[in-house]
């Protein structure tokens, strides 16, 4: 019994490590191509956006969830269902703004940056910017326009990684019939 569970756990770990390694290779190639940190950040955000736009359908197909009623529900679903499904972590939702239109996702350990140490010359790099883009792209497909950015980054010396999400507006021009 313990042998099979050990094997399954190791397999998952290996796939997870391959993913981390692949992401690291991606970022290092982008740095070689674009050289400037903000260009790389922009590209990572764009890539994340493209991933989010497609991943959201997969998420809706697998989770069978209906529409969320407000931003709080959306934040909970992102943290507890989506992050758990794809990255196997559960960030904490905190730091709600007074108008309830901004919140933070605190990631204790970022699986994308598991073995990474950011050097001095790349201090402006948002290493996991693909997550920002993905959340933005996914929510845009669900008719919510948001702005996402990293407030704190564990790679830059802070205790944990904090991803801030700010609600901008509801996109009503492309609403599918029946969803309001």
């Amino acid at each position, binding site marked *: 019994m313990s042998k099979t569970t050990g094997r399954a756990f190791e397999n998952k770990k290996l796939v997870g490590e391959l993913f981390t390694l692949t992401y690291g290779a991606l970022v290092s190639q982008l740095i070689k191509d674009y050289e400037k940190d903000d260009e790389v950040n922009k590209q990572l955000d764009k890539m994340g956006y493209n991933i989010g736009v497609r991943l959201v359908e*997969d998420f809706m197909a697998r989770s069978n969830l209906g529409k969320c009623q407000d931003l709080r529900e959306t934040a909970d679903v992102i943290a507890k269902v989506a992050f758990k499904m794809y990255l196997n972590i559960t960030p904490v939702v905190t730091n709600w703004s007074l108008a309830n239109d901004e919140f933070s996702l605190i990631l204790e350990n970022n699986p994308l940056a598991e073995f990474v140490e950011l050097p001095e010359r790349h201090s402006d790099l948002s290493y996991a910017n693909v997550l920002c883009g993905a959340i933005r792209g996914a929510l845009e497909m669900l008719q919510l326009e948001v702005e996402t950015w990293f407030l704190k980054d564990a790679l830059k010396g802070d205790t944990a990684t904090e991803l801030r999400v700010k609600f901008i507006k509801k996109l009503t021009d492309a609403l599918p019939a029946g969803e309001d």
Partner: protein
Amino acid sequence: MPVFSVYVVNKAGGLVFQYDHQKTSIELEKTFSYPLDLKLEPQTDYVTVVFGQQDGIKVGHVILSVNGKAVSGRKLQDGSDVMEFIENEKNYPLNIRFGRPKLSSNQKIMMASMFHSLYAISVQLSPESGSSGIQKLETDTFTLHCHQTVTGVKFIVISDPKQVGVDSLLARLYTIYSDYALKNPFYSLEMPIRTELFDSQVVTAIEQTEKVGSAI
């Protein structure tokens, strides 16, 4: 066949994927002698049967081939008009194949966008706000099931009224779409899906629904 066809419509109402699962098409061939006891009438694209139903040949059927040679529209392959050929006594006895006209791909695209509009209208018609659109359309010969995702993509399945498990088929189609269409980097969103992997997965899902009554 219990599941007749599958349509996938994108957010804007354009047809993205269409598949007909009929194994047997309704076609009848019969030899006739002069005078022809069916009343035929030429339409813009076909010659249809208007009167004189017999032996399974029904009103609405169109001429598919004469003497084994396929008919294109209202003309035979050599360019002569079908109606003239049939009215000429010298050509009898002749063999005509009748069948139900198949929808052309343009017609299917038009049907899909029309359904998309009807779906939106049905939301407006509801006495309550926040209603869904058309989920099931029932007639005596078929039932149309439609599932719209939160992102606006519609999966439409036309099946036999007695077919069970179409809801699970719709859910399975959504999973197949999210896997084989969206995860393909060469597929652009909202464009027609033309990949064999997607086609074969859809066929497998339909066959499983027909056999077992559930696609999961």
